[in-house]
């Protein structure tokens, strides 16, 4: 669907490559997460993929054709939300959306979308008077207005409250269910873990790891099971390897002790993030 081969990008006023030779595929109908510390090159990669930054090195194929071979009708099928919410501040939410709506051949009804993200009652308020979270939700709706096949979302839930973040994530999943393809960057590991079919970790412009969240958690975790139990009022714990759990000592423990918790040793995306990028999370 989208194929990226040895893509490098250098901003004109900079001596270093912001993205330094990345390879990945985004398959049709999947949510592909891009993770990495601040300044790693996530937004730059997104801007290259949506044809905002020209002059990249390497190859990018979009539905089997070189990205550069597309003209502006490329955007008929693409929805974008930027890191910073952008709107005409003196136009109302509806006026903002109406303007963009007229630029596409195929569009969707605004009302259900605005209702879903809780902005319908504020539709006649000027976008400049919106809170940050409201502006972000408005931008998210704008990205969906042309009924796109591809969504490029740069930190879409950053600055959105948990309830609305949940709604947006549901909408992203529904978008995939209808066959849509999503490229998403985020610092919020929980969101990525929940949403993405596959993730890639980038730091200093290079890809460090790629895979499904589940596979990565197993790969970077320990093949162990930790059992906590209570004995004479004290909490004890015992660690088993995955091979040991088929043996008598493990069964005896489960049978004879007052078990409190059992945890397998797979790790979290957060720990993988720190390990593969060598950087602690911002948040």
């Amino acid at each position, binding site marked *: 669907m989208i194929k990226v081969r040895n893509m490098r990008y250098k901003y*004109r006023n900079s001596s270093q490559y912001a993205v330094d030779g990345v390879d990945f595929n985004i398959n049709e109908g999947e949510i592909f997460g891009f993770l990495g510390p601040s300044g790693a090159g996530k937004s730059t990669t997104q801007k290259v993929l949506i044809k905002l930054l020209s002059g990249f090195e390497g190859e990018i194929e979009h539905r089997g054709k070189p990205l550069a071979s597309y003209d*502006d009708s490329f*955007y008929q099928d693409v929805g*974008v939300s930027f890191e910073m919410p*952008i709107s*005409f*501040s003196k136009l109302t939410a509806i006026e903002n959306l109406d*303007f963009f709506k007229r*630029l596409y051949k195929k569009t969707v009804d605004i009302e259900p979308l605005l209702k879903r993200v809780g902005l319908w009652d504020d539709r006649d308020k000027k976008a400049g008077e919106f809170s940050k979270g409201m502006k972000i939700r408005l*931008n998210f709706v704008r990205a969906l207005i042309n009924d796109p096949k591809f969504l490029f979302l740069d930190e879409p839930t950053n600055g959105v409250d948990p309830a609305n973040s949940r709604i947006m994530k549901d909408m992203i999943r529904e978008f995939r269910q209808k066959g849509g393809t999503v490229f998403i960057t985020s610092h919020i590991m929980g969101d990525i873990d929940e949403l993405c079919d596959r993730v890639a970790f980038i730091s200093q412009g290079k890809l460090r790891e790629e895979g499904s969240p589940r596979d990565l958690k197993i790969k970077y975790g320990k093949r162990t099971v930790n059992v906590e139990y209570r004995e004479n009022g004290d909490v004890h714990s015992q660690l088993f390897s995955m091979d040991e759990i088929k043996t008598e000592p493990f069964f005896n423990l489960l049978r004879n002790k007052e078990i409190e918790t059992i945890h397998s040793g797979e790790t979290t995306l957060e720990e993988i993030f720190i390990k593969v990028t060598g950087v602690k999370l911002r948040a």
Partner: protein
Amino acid sequence: MPNLLTLVKAEFFRLNKYNLFTANFVVLIMWVVLAYFLEAEMLLRFIPFIFFMDSIMMTILLVGATLFYEKKEHTINSIMVTPVTEHEFLTAKVLVNVVNSLITVAVISIAVYFIKEVTFNYLLLLPAIVLVTVVHSLIGIRLSYSAKDFTSHLINYMLYVFIFALPPIFALFGIISESVSRFFILLPPEASSVLINTAFTQIEAWRVVFSYIYLIALSAMLYMFSVKPKFNEYLMKETGV
């Protein structure tokens, strides 16, 4: 260019919302009031100046003001990820100013007709106004994209006026000799003034023909070699936000 009409309409809608249209309208009313107090003969000499001011000065100012807002709100980013092309975007900006200038022409012409029964050659005036506004929209866009903020746009604007509009005025007062002032037709405001004046007085044919050819060529060159490259540079800078 399927999006052109949509963009032009949207631009007018925004001009209105951002109160720039009102500013334009206030100036227009001011001209009409001024016309009311002038004698018919004086008025006939004054009207070309109104059109000159509107299609040159107001155009540059209005372009500057709209682009200033766009820069501040970074809206170009979201427009560039829609099917709108860069040519459509720039053409729409120019067209909006052309329509604006034509509105001024219509209002002033109707007003002076009813106030003082003054008429002039509208058929010669229209193409002149369109061309002059096109050139100066492009100049306005170019000046605006090289300005950091609205203040520096104003400074660029003053410089433009100073360099290009003042010499002809000096010549008028005999400060600059005839031998030099012959070449003033190469200054865009002077060529513009020649074209606008065709509707009011007799002007040597070669000057008119030259001015038309010159300003059309200038528009094309400005667009290709100055405005479009500068716009692309601005886009690259904007995407860094």
